[in-house]
């Protein structure tokens, strides 16, 4: 099983393509400038990434116009997006795709996602822990649902949803079932978000028309787990970039006649961070490769470890850049905001450890 912890050649090629695109189209200066515009998501970049490189249809089978790839390839894309804190709805789209793939009769939706015609998102709070936290806030008529219902009506409110602002299609969990709702039929209000590069929104449904996709939430838990697995790779990429940026800076910044990176007070912390990032790479790879019962354990480990490492890397990046790192015009804050936000997404590290305790039979009392 240990080969799965490495990157394959096709994965390296995909990474290079995404890195080239982001290098050309998403330098941090543009990412920062966009945060204060009316369009926090970069639609052109998403088009180039989603359909140009094919990231939108990575998981979609080839016969539906996708790449027929796995979470491993998606994770490589996420690593690069984390390095650039790129404002594209890749993660949300991935979650929706993973969910639709698990449901019967969703080929048409998947085709449209792969072709770039539609972008989808799951209407669920970004902080939702997989396998937990189903606070029902949307009600449906008619109820109980019956197979084949295409004209249900949904009313309610979902707060703090990631990647739903640029979505056309929303998959809404409501009263124990999953519905497809056109984004045009709901009211979305952008939230002033801690992460300025992944702006959340609140969704208001007022008698919105919906099509029943599935009764029950079991597929939802799997999709959330898959998304959380890929998020660990985004966190890995973010941490790598923060470390690289900081190492570069402390080599050139001189105080007391020496590069500040020559002081053990900084050197040792950077070395410790590097050790943790090397570990993050192994656990993130495992999380997107594991199957069966192992997957939930692997994802809980990856989320507990990688979200902690990403936050540490971003915090050290700010601190070791000193004065400049605390300013708006240095990119460190973009990474800090992304890192801290992702550490709350899909549950905090502590909640993942609690979940892990159940999975490996180490009960709290």
């Amino acid at each position: 099983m240990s080969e799965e912890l490495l990157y394959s050649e096709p994965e390296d090629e995909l990474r290079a393509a995404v890195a080239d695109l982001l290098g050309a189209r998403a330098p941090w200066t543009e990412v920062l400038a966009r945060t204060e515009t009316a369009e926090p998501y970069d639609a052109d970049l998403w088009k180039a990434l989603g359909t140009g490189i094919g990231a939108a249809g990575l998981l979609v089978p080839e016969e539906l116009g996708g790449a027929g790839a796995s979470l491993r390839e998606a994770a490589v894309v996420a690593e690069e997006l984390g390095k650039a804190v790129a404002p594209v709805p890749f993660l949300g789209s991935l979650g929706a795709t993973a969910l639709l793939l698990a449901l019967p009769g969703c080929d048409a939706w998947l085709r449209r996602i792969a072709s770039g015609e539609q972008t989808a998102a799951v209407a669920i709070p970004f902080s939702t822990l997989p396998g937990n936290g189903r606070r029902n806030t949307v009600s449906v008529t008619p109820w109980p649902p019956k197979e084949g219902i295409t004209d249900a009506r949904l009313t309610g409110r979902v707060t703090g949803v990631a990647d739903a602002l640029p979505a056309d299609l929303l998959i809404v969990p409501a009263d124990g079932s999953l519905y497809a709702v056109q984004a045009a039929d709901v009211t979305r209000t952008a939230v002033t978000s801690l992460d300025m590069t992944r702006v959340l929104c609140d969704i208001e449904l007022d008698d919105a028309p919906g099509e029943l996709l599935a009764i029950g939430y079991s597929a939802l838990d799997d999709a959330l787990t898959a998304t959380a697995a890929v998020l660990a790779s985004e966190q890995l990429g973010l941490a790598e970039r923060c470390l690289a940026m900081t190492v570069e800076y402390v080599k050139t910044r001189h105080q007391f006649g020496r590069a500040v990176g020559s002081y053990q007070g900084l050197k040792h912390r950077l070395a410790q961070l590097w050790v943790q990032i090397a570990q993050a790479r192994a656990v993130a790879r495992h999380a997107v490769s594991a199957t069966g019962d192992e997957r939930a354990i692997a994802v809980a480990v990856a989320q507990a470890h990688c979200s902690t490492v990403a936050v540490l890397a971003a915090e050290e990046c700010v601190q070791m850049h000193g004065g400049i790192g605390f300013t708006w015009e240095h990119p460190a804050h973009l990474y800090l905001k992304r890192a801290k936000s992702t550490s709350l997404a899909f549950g905090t590290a502590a909640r993942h450890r609690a979940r892990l305790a159940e999975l490996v039979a180490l009960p709290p009392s």
Partner: protein
Amino acid sequence: MPPLTTQHDLENQIHDFLAAHDPSATDPLDFLRARFDAGLAWLHYPPGLGGQSLPRGLQPVAEQAFAAAGAPDNNPRRIGIGLGMAAPTILAFGTDEQKERWLRPLWCGEEVWCQLFSEPGAGSDLAALATRAVRDGDDWVVTGQKVWTSMAHEARWAILVTRTDPDVPKHQGMTYFVLDMTAPGVEVRPLRQITGEAEFNEVFLTGVRVPDAHRLGAVGDGWRVAQTTLMNERVAIGGGAAPREAGMIGILAEAWRTRPEVREPALHDRLMTLWVAAEAARLTGLRLSAQLAAGQPGPEGSAAKYAFATLNQQLSGLELELLGEEGLRYDDWTMRRPDTVDFVGRSPGYRYLRAKGNSIEGGTSEILLNIIAERVLGLPGEIRADKDVAWKDLPR
């Protein structure tokens, strides 16, 4: 003969070897010698010296095949210093006669090796060492004191670094030897540790004669030779394929599962944090092995020992806290002379105390962080006030 590159070829070769040397009917030492002579000992060594210049990644295939056949092994833990440190150095710097003389009995476990590097005045700063070797005809006469020497009381040979020229800066005046531990003037005294036992020794060298034929590398080139030894030590530490919950975390998890009375709610998140850390370290070791097997050696190996030391100390500390009153007891302070470290078989107090050595032995955690920072991240080196000063003029 065509090069054997695939696992399948190797397995066939081992199969043929086992057919010709039935493990159950062959004397263990004869078996090991035959395995060495067939080039099936350390596969990456050259032909004629126990190997076939194969990739290192194939070694586990051979070990599994021999173990499955019930073949005797060379007790690798007992001869770890020879296998991991002396042998690669002899291979890199030894003459043909030296390789011929030392490598076969080393691998077969006939001769145990120890390492005479550290001194009371030269720990992290190994290059400051003061053990003098003075040329006298065809011999060198060695006088000094070495310390933290595992297995010295059982060793037949030692790898030894000495000061041969005190008038040049410290890195330039060293020479590397192989020392006969049975020679007159070698005195080994146990060095008792905080655990009560004595894994290590002090070794006093008083006018010990070492033939010049036992020198490894050129006179004055000892630092470079020693670097080879130390680099191999770090390679040996990284990697591995331990199952989940192996080692200290397994002991803790077992206690938590089987003894509900130790479950302290406030300690639960700490336990899980360490469980995650242990799993992350385990997967990193697996990834490192995969990299080595795929011929992409990474710098992760230098991190493995650092992570292991930190984790062991945190786990063993938590174990005592979990056990409460029981943690106040210790199993045995009697002076013992163990061959290997046994974390599992001893008491929690022993584990706590012995783990303290993990961040000191084989390079302190602080030195390892320097190495990662400088060699991996490319950060500036420490300011070295002693770089251009003759060794004899250094403050000590």
